C-alpha cells in the first residue's frame, strides 16, 4: 500500500512540474505583451520589462517562477486590476467558486444516487424510463443551457431567485448556479448507480442475504448500495473537471465574482500572469482530487493497488 501511494504521489508531483513548465513555455509564446500600449516608448518598455523581471534569461525566470508558485505568490496582475497581487485577487474569489462547486457536487450526488436507485429497483417500469430520460438529458445538455433556462424562467420571468449574483444574498444567489452545475454530476451518477445496482442486485450474495430473511430495506442499504458505491468513486475525478469547465460559463452567466469569471476576463484581456496562476490552481486542484480518488480507491479495492491497473 505504501508503495502504491508513494508511486501515485510521485507521479502527481511530476505532473504538476510538467504543467508549470508547459504553462511557462506557452505563456512565452503568446502573442502580444501586456505593454501593448502605443503611448509607451521603447525606453519605458525596457524599464517595465526590467521591473517585472521579463529581461532575465528564461531559465532564471522559470526557476524563480516555480519557487514563487509553490509559495503561493503568483505575481501581480497586469491588466485586470493593475498591480494587485494575484493571490489577493484569488483569495476573495476562490471561496465563492468552491462553495458553488461543493453545493453542485453534493446536490448532484444525492439526487443522482436517488434517481439511480429508483431506476435500478423499479427496473423496466415507467419510473425507470423517466429516470433514464432525465439522466440522458443531463449528460447531453451542457450546463450553461440549464443555466440560461433557469435564469430566464426562474430569474427573469418569475423572479424567484436573483438573476445575477448578489454578494449580500449569497445563499439565494447560489441556488440557480449550483443547480445548473449539478445536472451533469447528477446524470452521470444516476447512470452509474443504476448499472452498478443492477449488477449487484443480480449477484448471488444478494440472493443469500434475502434467504437469510433480511428485510428488503436492510438488503438494499447494507448490502447492495454499499457495494455499488465503490465504483462510483471513480467517476468523481472526471466530474471535477466538468465542474471546472462548467463553472467558467455558469459564472459568466450569473455574473458570479468567482475564479471562473476571473479566468475568462484574464483570457480576454491577455493578462497572462492571471491565466498562469489560475491554470496552475485548476491543475493543482485537479491533480489533488485525482490523487485522493486513486488512493481511496486503492484502499477500498485491493485489486487496484496490487498492480491490476489497465483501464
Amino acid at each position, binding site marked *: 500500500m505504501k508503495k502504491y501511494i508513494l508511486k501515485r504521489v510521485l*507521479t*502527481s508531483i*511530476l*505532473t*504538476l512540474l*510538467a*504543467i508549470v513548465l*508547459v*504553462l511557462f513555455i*506557452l*505563456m512565452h*509564446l*503568446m*502573442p502580444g505583451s501586456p505593454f501593448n500600449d502605443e503611448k509607451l516608448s521603447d525606453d519605458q518598455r525596457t524599464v517595465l520589462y526590467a521591473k517585472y523581471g521579463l529581461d532575465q534569461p528564461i531559465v532564471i525566470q522559470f526557476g524563480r517562477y516555480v519557487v514563487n508558485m509553490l509559495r503561493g505568490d503568483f505575481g501581480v496582475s497586469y491588466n485586470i486590476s493593475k498591480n494587485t497581487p494575484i493571490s489577493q485577487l484569488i483569495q476573495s474569489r476562490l471561496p465563492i467558486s468552491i462553495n458553488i462547486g461543493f453545493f453542485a457536487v453534493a446536490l448532484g450526488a444525492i439526487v443522482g444516487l436517488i434517481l439511480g436507485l429508483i431506476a435500478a429497483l423499479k427496473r423496466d417500469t415507467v419510473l425507470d424510463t423517466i429516470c433514464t430520460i432525465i439522466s*440522458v*438529458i443531463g*449528460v*447531453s*445538455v*451542457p450546463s*450553461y*443551457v440549464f443555466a*440560461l433556462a433557469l435564469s*430566464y424562467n426562474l430569474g*427573469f420571468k418569475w423572479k424567484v431567485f436573483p438573476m445575477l449574483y448578489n454578494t449580500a444574498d449569497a445563499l439565494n444567489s447560489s441556488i440557480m448556479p449550483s443547480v445548473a452545475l449539478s445536472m451533469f454530476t447528477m446524470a452521470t451518477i444516476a*447512470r*452509474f448507480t*443504476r*448499472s*452498478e445496482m*443492477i*449488477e449487484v442486485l443480480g449477484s448471488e450474495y444478494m*440472493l443469500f442475504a*434475502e*434467504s437469510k430473511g433480511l428485510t428488503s430495506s436492510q438488503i438494499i442499504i447494507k448490502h447492495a448500495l454499499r457495494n455499488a458505491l465503490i465504483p462510483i468513486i471513480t467517476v468523481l475525478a472526471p466530474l471535477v*473537471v466538468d465542474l*471546472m*469547465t462548467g463553472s*467558467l*460559463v455558469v459564472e*459568466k*452567466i450569473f455574473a458570479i465574482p468567482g475564479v471562473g469569471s476571473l*479566468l*475568462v476576463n484574464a*483570457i*480576454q484581456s*491577455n493578462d*497572462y500572469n492571471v*491565466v498562469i496562476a489560475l*491554470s496552475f490552481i*485548476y*491543475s493543482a486542484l*485537479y*491533480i489533488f482530487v*485525482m490523487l485522493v480518488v486513486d488512493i481511496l480507491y486503492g484502499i477500498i479495492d485491493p485489486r487496484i493497488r496490487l498492480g491490476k491497473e*489497465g*483501464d
Partner: protein
Amino acid sequence: MDAYFVLKKQNEDINIDSNYASQSFWKEVRHRFFHKKSAVVGLIFIILIVFFAIVGPGMTEYDYSTQELTQKNFAPRVPGLENLGILDGTETLSTTTGSKEINQYEAGGHDDLYYWFGSDMYGRDLWTRCWSGARVSLIIAVAAALIDMIIGMSYGLISGFFGGAVDMVMQRLLEIWNGIPRLVIVTLLLLILRPGMITIIFALMLTEWVGMSRIARAEMLKLKEQEFVLASRTLGAGSFFIIFKEVLPNIIGPIITQVMFSIPTAIFTEAFLSFVGLGIPVPQCSLGSLISDGYDSFTTHPYQIIPPIIIMALLMLSFNLLGDGLREAFDPKMKEM
C-alpha cells in the same frame, strides 16, 4: 408452507433449447442496433440535422454574413404557420412601462419578408446562420473525433502491443498529460494560436485522444495473447502488420463507439470555447457562437437563442443515444455504463 418460501430465479424457459442460424458479425450488430429504439431515434435525428446542415443554408435567399441593419431583431415568421397565429412575426417586449406586442414586419412594411427563425441583432437571417453554424460545429467535431481516433488508437495499440519498457514510458507520459486539465490545455493553446476552425480542431485533437488510447490499449492487452496473433507471428508477420492488420479489425467495435462519444464532447468543447470568446472568428458562426450571441439579448429576444440551443442539445443527445446503442450492439454482454 408455501406462504413462507417463495422460489427465486426459477426460469422454466431456461431448459428450452432453441436453435438460431449462425449469422455474420455485422448482421448481428445491425440487428441488435435496430432493435434499440433510442439508438434509431438518435440516428434519425443525426441524419436530419446533417441533412439540414448541408441544404439548410441554401433554402433561403439570405446568406450567413450579409447584414441588413434595417431588419434587425425580427421575430420568427414562417409562411403558412403565420395564419395560425404562431410564428407570425410578433413578439412581446417587456419594457419598464409594461409589456407590449409588436410586429416588426408590419411596422416596417416588410410583408413579403420571411425570417423562419427570425433575424439577429445585425439583421442576419438566423435560419441560415443556425444551419451553417451546425455545419461548422459538425465539421469540427467529426474532424477532431477522427484525428483523435487515429492518434489515440495508434498510441494505445503500440503501447499495449510492445508492453514492457515501451508501455511503461508511454503510460507514464500519458498519465502526466492526462493530469493536466483539458480546460487549461485548450485555453492556453487558443491563446497562442489564432482562433479559427483549424486551431479548434487542433486543440480538441490534443486533448481527446487519451480516452481512445486507453480503450485501444485495453483491447490490445486482451487480444495479443490470442492464438491468431501467435499464428500470424509464426508465419513471419512483423509487429506493425500484426497491430494494424490483425488486431485492429477485431477491435473496430469499441473504437467506433468511442468515436461516437467523442463527437458530442467535441461539440460541447467548441460551444464552450465560443462562449468564452475563443471560438470561430466572425462573421463565421458555429452553434456555440450563435448561443453566445443570443445570450446577449436573451431576455428581450429569446427566440434568437432557442434554435441553436435546441439544435445543439438534439445533436449531443442523438450522438449519446447512438453511442449507447452501438456499444450494446457491438458488445451485448458489456455493462451499460
